[in-house]
């Protein structure tokens, strides 16, 4: 058996968190920060190596590891394909950025914070690697514990309410998925998804199981109308928490649709397409309108996340090549853009301790570097051509036009609204006159902040002009996903 590279990837952050636990630094937390940076960078490099050595010309799962776990019942099975590798790299890329960001923003219990982030990274990597439903569920749910603590311990004034809402909403959605997973085990005799793909779940069970999975993914996505936990969680979470939440945790659901819902329940996926269209369109238009009315920057970005995730669900369930590729692209690019925007809010929040839009104004006159970066990210978020945000939305809309003109037109309208709230936000925060004397004394971004933000800006523009590295990676996997879906429908 070859080297268990995926297990190493999963447990590397966990092991570094144990080292942090054992490290003894009383006055400052330098050694904890170095250990966590080292651990998360090592994980990132390992995942890059994985991406590099992945064969993109096959849709088979690679680096598969299999170990008997719960005797002759569930195997501990890991593996990646062209779709999951990108989420994996996104996870390992965002985590070091979060750790760097917390140097500036976290003041109390830094050690515990780093441990929580690293344990969360372990669980997130586990979600994207698992090829077994029970393992997936295990990692999917386990992520709640560190995230709950991150929001609750280091969060803002209403943190308790937000943390509870986050935890209970997600748990409520997930328990139905657990019932469905166990039911699948008794129907097919296995929870190994590669085997379930081949066995094919009988038609009469598909709809109900699909809905059970939806209940979990819809909350996590989040789709309208169960999105209400997200703005609360984002507003109260510390910067690093918001970044992880927006960049990675939300992607788990989109990934879940691609990995589980569509291949396992193709007939149900087709049957429920109108439902998803409706919910996505409502999410896009309604939450965009809500975003327009926000006076809290984080809340505005949170609502814009819901709208962007609306494009993702729309794209996935067009079940066309363009739609699905666009969704994946949108998820990766949203992972970068929303992370960048939350970091930007974090930067000014650390200085003025206010997230209110009205506090700011005229920033461009005093902190120009920051303003430039903010502008780039805002334009990327509204989908300006030349940024990665454009490509995702464009492909999704192309895919949607093939299936439904009405949905596509309404979604396009959402793009206009997106431009409206993003530009208005920029106008009120970056331009205009400073109506607050403290703004004049603001310090511009420091080295570590400019490092993170410039890297993100570079990637957003790079992938805006040159999408090939990403497209190439998931192309074959998406083709086979659609092929399997269509054969399942025709054979029905």
């Amino acid at each position, binding site marked *: 058996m070859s080297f268990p590279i995926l297990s190493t990837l999963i447990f590397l952050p966990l092991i570094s968190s144990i080292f942090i636990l054992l490290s003894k630094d009383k006055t400052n937390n330098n050694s904890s920060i170095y250990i966590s940076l080292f651990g998360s960078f090592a994980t990132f490099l390992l995942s890059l190596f994985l991406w590099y050595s992945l064969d993109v010309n096959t849709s088979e799962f690679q680096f598969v590891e299999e170990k008997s*776990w*719960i*005797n002759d*019942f569930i195997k501990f099975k890991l593996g990646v394909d062209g779709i999951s590798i990108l989420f994996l790299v996104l996870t390992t890329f965002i985590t070091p950025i979060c750790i760097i960001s917390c140097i500036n923003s976290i003041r109390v219990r830094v050690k*515990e914070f780093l441990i929580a982030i690293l344990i969360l990274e372990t669980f997130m990597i586990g979600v994207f690697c698992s090829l077994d439903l*029970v393992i997936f*569920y*295990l*990692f999917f*749910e*386990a992520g*709640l*514990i560190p995230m*709950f*603590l991150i929001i*609750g*311990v280091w969060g803002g004034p209403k*943190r*308790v309410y937000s*943390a*509870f809402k986050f*935890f*209970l909403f997600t*748990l*409520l959605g997930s*328990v*139905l998925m*657990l*019932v469905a997973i*166990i*039911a699948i*085990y*008794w129907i097919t005799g296995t929870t190994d998804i590669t085997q379930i793909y081949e066995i094919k779940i009988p038609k009469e069970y598909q709809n109900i199981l699909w809905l059970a999975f939806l209940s979990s993914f819809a909350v996590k996505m989040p789709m309208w109308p169960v999105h209400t936990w997200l703005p609360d969680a984002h507003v109260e979470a510390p910067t690093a928490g918001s970044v992880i939440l927006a960049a990675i945790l939300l992607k788990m659901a989109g990934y879940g649709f691609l990995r589980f819902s569509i291949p396992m329940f193709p007939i149900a996926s087709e049957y429920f397409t109108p439902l998803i269209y409706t919910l996505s369109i409502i999410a896009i238009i309604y939450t965009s309108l809500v975003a327009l009315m926000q006076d809290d920057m984080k809340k505005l970005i949170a609502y814009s996340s819901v709208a962007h995730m609306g494009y993702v669900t729309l794209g996935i369930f067009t079940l066309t090549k363009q739609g699905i590729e666009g969704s994946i692209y949108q998820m990766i690019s949203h992972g970068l853009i929303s992370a960048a925007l939350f970091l930007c809010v974090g930067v000014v929040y650390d200085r003025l301790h206010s997230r209110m839009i009205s506090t700011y104004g005229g920033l461009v006159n005093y902190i120009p570097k920051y303003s430039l970066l903010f502008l780039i990210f805002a334009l990327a978020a509204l989908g300006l051509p030349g940024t990665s945000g454009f490509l995702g939305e464009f492909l999704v809309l192309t895919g949607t036009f093939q299936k439904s003109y009405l949905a596509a037109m309404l979604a396009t309208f959402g793009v206009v609204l997106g431009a409206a709230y993003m530009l208005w936000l920029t106008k009120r925060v970056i331009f205009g006159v400073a109506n607050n004397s403290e703004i004049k004394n603001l310090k511009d971004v420091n080295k570590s902040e400019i490092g993170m933000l410039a890297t993100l800006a570079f990637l957003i523009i790079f992938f805006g002009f040159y999408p090939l590295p990403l497209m190439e990676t998931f192309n074959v996997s998406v083709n086979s996903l659609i092929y399997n879906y269509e054969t399942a429908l025709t054979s029905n």
Partner: protein
Amino acid sequence: MIYNLNIIFPEIFLSLSIFSVLMIGVFIKKSFNLIFNLTSLIIIITIMIISSSPNDTEKVFSESFTRDAFSNYFKILILLSSLFVLNSSKNFIVENKLDKFEYPIIILLSILGMFFMVSANDLILFYLGLELQSLSLYILASIDRDNLRSTESGIKYFVLSALSSGLLLYGCSLLYGFTGSTNFDLIASQLNKENTGAVFAMVFILVGLAFKVSAVPFHMWTPDVYEGAPTSITSYFAVVPKTAGLALLIKFMFIPFSNILLEWQTIIIFISIASMILGAVAAMIQKNFKRLLAYSSIGHIGYALAGVATGTISGYKSTIVYITIYVIMNIGAFSCLYLLKKDGQYKENISDLSGISKKHPLLAISLLIILFSLAGIPPLGGFFAKFYVFVAVIEKEMYALAIIGLLTTVLSAFYYLKIIKTIYFDDSLIAFESTKNRTAQISILASCSILITFFLYPSILNNLVDTLFIG
């Protein structure tokens, strides 16, 4: 007739030791420490005797006493949990002046009673075992006899428990009347649906047993007794008799009542759902940690009973796995209570926990692990306990039970989160004395490390339990 006394050797050894220790207690003054240590030693020796005895099924005394893998498993579980409960509570016992020499001896007597309960294959022996256990527990509940709450809880427990014993005895006599035998195997062969009287008897027996494991609607005594009794006793109550009661319940369903599955199944499903819901809802408003644990234990019994409700061997197995993990979690949870000392007083209100994460980070993280595990969040041990139960439940296509059960886990997650919120999110109010309570710390460490590492090898308990139902 010559009996093979080897088969009841653990029981003989235990009774003889109890009498010898009692003599020591009577004749030597201030002998609590000596007797306490001897008791631990006796428990350890008994564990060794049982684990070295073979697991094949043997029945003696006109087939009224069974020794099999099932009874051995439960005996070891009972002994191990008593050992941990007893030792982690030693400081508490001494500091609260409960260090009477009778204390450990009565615990041993109740263990002996439970031994007969799990080994019984006959109504008479089962009832005698149950009563020996119950009488010991009445005394234990009111052992702090100068304390009003302890006495009150003892009386409450005695009156209600005596009532349930009466119902149980009534059921037993009906069963004997309608089947003509007191032997479990013979009853099983006599019972069928047409035997209405026996079905009637089954209901009475079920009520009695539900009372002993504190399942809704026979749970009323639990919160009061848990709150009123000294913490050391409460932890014993929460862990050991529950295990024995559940073992007995499984045994009744598996042997004498196996032919009237459809009749008792509905009752157990009702009891299970009611316990899960009540445990979750009532715990939300509790302010006392012990009372909260009482309601949480009611909820947990509901989940354990969901496994029994399937009426399948895999269901019973999942219940046994559940109760084992439940025991591990509760030993940890109660041991934490022994560390919450301030000005010579043990605190038991949830609000006393506020902000302990800053001053006592290790205690806080242990409580965090135990509480998330009690809530059944993966990857901790408590998740697997629930997972196995629901696998068995869904195998029988009892989807309603599974969905209600899992929804109540969300409800119950709420109150566990409330405690975690108090520990981690609130500001610290009081600092506890850093007590040197090594035994309690060891119990917490053992419990937490099992719960954390359980996911590495989650089939370890299943492998053990798989052998129990061959006989």
